[in-house]
């Protein structure tokens, strides 16, 4: 395939972008991204509240918000992203902070905290949640039901009682 064929191919795909709609999480930004044959293509949207939205590209560079995405659309979006399990350790104004589980597939360090966006359930402190990772942000998906709730209780109690973390040991 020559460069010109590739350009034509991508050009047609770009032009047909206005006929499509896509779902995207939005968190205090006016930029959303979509794929065009594997390429990341960014579009500008009007500022809006954080949430999951259906987006419609108006032209190559701008898009409008059609409405909020429903649960199924959100699930479909998150299904495509690799999953990361994160233990929530604090709640900020409109996002949570957590630490990834030790043996995560992305090699994320447990020494650094990471923000978790768009948490719409009400998880408790030290709950493990499943997030979708798009390469730069962690989007909340669900609470990890496989996690032992007794472990979370133990950590919460230890935290409230001011126990020494180096000596606290959970016995299953």
């Amino acid at each position, binding site marked *: *395939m020559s*460069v*010109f064929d*590739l*350009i*034509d191919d*991508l*050009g*047609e*795909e*770009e*032009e047909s972008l206005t006929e499509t709609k896509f779902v995207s999480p939005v968190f205090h930004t006016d930029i959303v991204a979509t*794929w*065009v*044959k*594997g*390429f*990341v*293509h960014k579009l500008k949207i009007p500022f809006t509240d954080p949430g999951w939205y259906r987006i419609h590209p108006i032209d*190559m*560079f701008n898009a409008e918000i059609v409405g909020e995405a429903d649960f199924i659309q959100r699930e479909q979006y998150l299904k495509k992203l690799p999953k990361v399990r994160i233990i929530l350790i604090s709640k900020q104004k409109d996002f949570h902070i957590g630490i990834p589980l030790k043996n995560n597939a992305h090699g994320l360090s447990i020494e650094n905290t990471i923000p978790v966006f768009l948490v719409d359930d009400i998880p408790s402190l030290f709950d493990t949640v499943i997030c979708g990772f798009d390469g730069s942000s962690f989007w909340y998906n669900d609470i990890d039901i496989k996690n032992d709730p007794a472990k979370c209780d133990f950590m919460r109690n230890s935290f409230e009682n001011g126990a020494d973390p180096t000596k606290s040991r959970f016995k299953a």
Partner: protein
Amino acid sequence: MTQNQEQDIRLQMLNSFLSCPHRDTDQIKRIHSELQSKDPVFYAHLASWYRKNGDIRDHMEVFASMLIIDSYHENREVGLAIFQQVPTFMKTRVLGFIKGKKVKIRHKTGRKKKIKGGKTIDDVNIEEKMVGLYKNPPTAFKREIKQYLRYLEADNKRFDSVAVRNARDLKTLYASMRIRPSRRANDILFHKKYPKDSGLNVFEEILNAKSSKKIARLIVENKVPYTTAVGLIEKITPSILVALINNMSPQELMNNLASLEERGALNNKQTRELIESKIEKVKKSKNVSALKGKQAKKTGRIKDASVSSKIDEVSDEQVKKRGTVKLPTAIFVDRSGSMRTAIEMGKSCAALVSGATEAPLYVIAFDSMPMEIQAKGNKTYSDWERAFIPVRPGGSTSIGCPLKALGDSNVYVEQIVIITDGGENAHPTFVSEYSRYANKMSVRPNVVIIRVGNWYEQFASNLKRSGIDTEIYTPQGTDYYGLPGLVQILSRKSKLDLLMEIMNTPLVHRKKYSNVAPDPKYKNDVSRKVLV
């Protein structure tokens, strides 16, 4: 002047090739001028050798400038020949250096700052400084510039292809030397009026084009250079990105690999093929900084395994071009207290030499005991980085202990590189172990000392007093532009071999321009006032 002093100046010069002044050419002006005045013949040969083998443009700029104003006719010819061979932007730099110019020097503050889009970059302070020789350009130089400009003017296509990328440099050459441009050159450069036959009309077409497909096609069809095209485009779409990748030079591609990956260019099969085929071409390219790829990898932004391994291949291939180390070599890395810089330098040297060696290489870190470091896999920079993880600074310094370990294991080496500050304070000492090793293995290895940190003179003078053939280099910083120069040094059997090779390099000569436009005459021209 003693023989020793003469050697020191040459050595200092070779030393300076190991570090890059990053546009602050005043830093290297003194050493160039000293060598030029003391040994002008050697200086001219060194310039010719550096033109062929050198990496750092700042040195090339100073070589050409110093030789152009040299009082020896032969040396002036070499300077003008180098000037003739360098690209247009370098011609302007040489002219600026002779006349004196203002340069902007960027200093990293060590802090990071966030920019638009959430990216984190190094915070820099920009310092403006005057550098140069502050001399009047000689007439021969002016004539050479004039010939070059007339040569460009003689062929419209040739002129346009240079003007598309170097319009500002061409303007400087015309204006600074008061050379009258042809009418066409005057219109293009000074009035931005592009004739109908000019390829530069494409700029306007790109600015007026409405679909990104058309912009992309125009960029590819007219071979608009990447740097120029990026300035013309408001926003980059996938099709435009493909056009830009197609027009990138090998160095530009290496510089932008991480950003291309982030934009998803590697997710598309055809674009990946295009990028990989371009990386293959980088291997053969002459104008690529050897360790650029490794540096790009060090940032951790390139995550694609296949591209990453290709970058290693490219870097190794580029390093090999600087020379092949054919002698069995040992690298001793000082890991004693506060020798963090030596460890960092050791990693880079090991990665660099292992990519360019055809003979066995032994890397040993030492304090008062030796510790052999072995990289697994392809012995790339990241492999060496992993291998150096357990090496931490601390303890006393016995530079003889790694040599003793080599002797005890009957390991034969002909070259020893010691990265140290020379603060030897524990036994066995290097001098005592050297004679023992030489007797046992029947070889007297060359010793290359790379001094780091606050170095002690004592160690090097002990070696010289004991008759050990020693070369000392003191690179300023450990930046990747200068480091490949180390391979050039290690690939020769001794410093004398390198100096002989330099002296045997034929001087560069000027070539006659094949086709030169006549001087423009505007005697009866109404627009004369504008043009004069």
